[in-house]
């Protein structure tokens, strides 16, 4: 692939927004720079024939995940990033040196990569092309089911983690012993927690 104007522009935008994410002092600004970074990455995905992944990137990453970040930043009033002191943040050039070394090693590694010959057949990365792979039992179907269950467990865990009742119960013995005969323990536990709140 030739390196033209758009590649250089995208590279500069990617690097610029990423540096803004790690250097800006205001956490809200850093999160918004992260949104810009994700949007540029989504554009690169479209250029690389991964259109469905690009749309998912915009919807899930830029739309949902960063908004969750912004919500928590504002909830905790943690917009000011400059709190605390440690040896490492006082020596940012050490981290910079480490990051430069990491970049050197990674760039050395990826420029050694020789792509196999043969015509690429990506089908534009559209859902028609990705769907049969995702739902093929010999390819990714079981991984897809596991990831779906993981999302369910993470949702339940997030609800349980931020519940005030849970923090009090953590200091003493648990309010409810977990029943092992439940077919779906995480969901049953969530229902139990809600019952506690009602009482």
């Amino acid at each position, binding site marked *: 692939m030739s390196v033209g104007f758009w590649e250089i522009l995208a590279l500069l935008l990617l690097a610029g927004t990423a540096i803004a*994410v790690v250097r800006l002092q205001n956490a809200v600004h850093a999160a918004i720079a992260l949104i810009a970074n994700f949007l540029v990455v989504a554009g*690169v995905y479209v250029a*690389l024939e*991964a259109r469905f*992944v690009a749309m998912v990137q915009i919807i899930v990453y830029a739309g949902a995940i960063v908004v969750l970040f912004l919500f928590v930043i504002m909830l*905790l009033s943690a917009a000011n*990033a400059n709190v605390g002191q440690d040896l490492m943040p006082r020596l940012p050039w050490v981290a910079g040196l480490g990051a430069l070394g990491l970049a050197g090693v990674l760039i050395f590694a990826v420029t050694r990569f020789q792509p*196999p010959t043969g015509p690429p057949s990506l089908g534009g990365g559209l859902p028609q092309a990705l769907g049969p792979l995702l739902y093929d039992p010999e390819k990714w179907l079981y991984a897809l089911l596991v990831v779906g269950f993981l*999302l369910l467990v993470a949702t339940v865990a997030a609800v349980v983690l931020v519940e005030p009742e849970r923090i009090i119960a953590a200091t003493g013995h648990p309010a409810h012993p977990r029943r092992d005969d439940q077919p779906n323990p995480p969901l049953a536990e969530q229902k139990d927690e809600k019952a506690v709140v009602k009482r």
Partner: protein
Amino acid sequence: MIWLVASALLFSIGAYGALTRRTAILVFLSIELMLNAAALSLISFSKLTGSLDAQVVVLFIIAIAAAEVAVGLGLIVAIFRRRETTSVDELRQLRG
């Protein structure tokens, strides 16, 4: 392939941020940057090799990142409620 270089750069910048940021939320933000760099490299490899499997893996990465953010931000909120801080310098009870 320029996008592999871009991915390496993004990963390194994210590592720099994870090392220098002092608030747990911003360390987390930098880790998201690194995850995204890994996804970008997978998409470039997909383009280079002509295989769609890498794009499926990127879909899984995005789903797992969503799960990770839900649990991680829940942890941060819970820690903030107990300790009134999310500074990674003050949360040092696990240090030897």
